[in-house]
């Protein structure tokens, strides 16, 4: 009995001292964004390209992203990894790493499926985690021009 009480006290003490895992609060996010591929002169240090975009919905504000790798597939599809940042109108930031599949439709046109892993943020998104999936199209895509129109939906968790 004494031993059980001792173990119980130890658990309570651990919980009260904050060593127990902290529950994350998760919220759904959704909306749309439009990204424009910047010309080389506006992103000369990003050899695989950079976009700037406007975001609607939960993350309403601005976004920029650059490609970290691009791997062509035999059928014209592309496997792309990205680094995306969102800045909301309220001034909060969200940092993500993306993995996308661009399915070839016609020259310069792709159906895009992208998964963004949230790797932190600033302001109300400090320490954020979660995943955002996007589905959209790439329109007249080529180095330095073209755009992506996407819908996003996901779950954003903060400590």
């Amino acid at each position, binding site marked *: 009995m004494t031993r059980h009480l001792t173990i119980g006290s130890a658990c309570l003490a651990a919980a009260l001292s904050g060593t127990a895992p902290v529950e994350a609060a998760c919220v759904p996010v959704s909306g749309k964004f439009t990204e424009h591929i910047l010309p080389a002169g506006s992103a000369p240090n990003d050899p695989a390209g950079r976009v700037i975009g406007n975001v609607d919905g939960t993350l309403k504000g*601005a976004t920029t992203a650059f490609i970290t790798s691009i791997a062509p597939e035999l059928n014209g599809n592309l496997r792309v990894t990205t680094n995306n940042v969102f800045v909301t109108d309220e001034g909060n930031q969200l*940092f993500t790493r993306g993995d996308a599949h661009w399915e070839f439709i016609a020259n310069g046109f792709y159906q895009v499926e992208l998964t963004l892993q949230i790797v932190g943020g600033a302001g109300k998104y400090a320490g954020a985690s979660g995943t955002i999936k996007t589905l959209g199209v790439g329109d007249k895509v080529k180095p330095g021009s073209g755009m992506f129109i996407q819908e996003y939906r996901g779950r954003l968790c903060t400590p």
Partner: protein
Amino acid sequence: MMKTLALFGVFCLALAPAARGQTKAGTTCTEISGQLNEFILPQASAPTDPFGRILGNVKGSLEGAVTAFLTSFVPSANGNVRVTNNHAFATLEGNQIFTRGAADWVFVKNGFYQVDMTLNIAGGTGRYVNATGSIHLLGIGNNVGQGTGQFVDEYRGQVCVPQ
């Protein structure tokens, strides 16, 4: 004679077209103004831009998004900094404006600056194809450090597009 010319000049100035739709040697110029709120991105979000990159939200005539990177950064002994930069604006309507800029950051205290910046428009896309003109910004740098901080600026200027 000089007085007559001066009066004539003032008279002509008074008759100048309204701000919107001014014409200048084959171009149509429009006054623009508003505010922008720029956030310095952490190094991991702009690893290839040696002096850093910002992402911001724009209100007013160019409502939408902006991103920029520094092309030079020259600190002075008194704490002031002279920078040059490269901005890209994407409006909500989907038009882009590209600029090359220079700014003086006047030291207020550590991490805080008064910012006076001039952006020369160097083209664009959509309705801003081949745009010219300049934009003047006044604002503050707030908690500015490597990979952190923000700039809050008001802008005013003129965008000219070929007729």
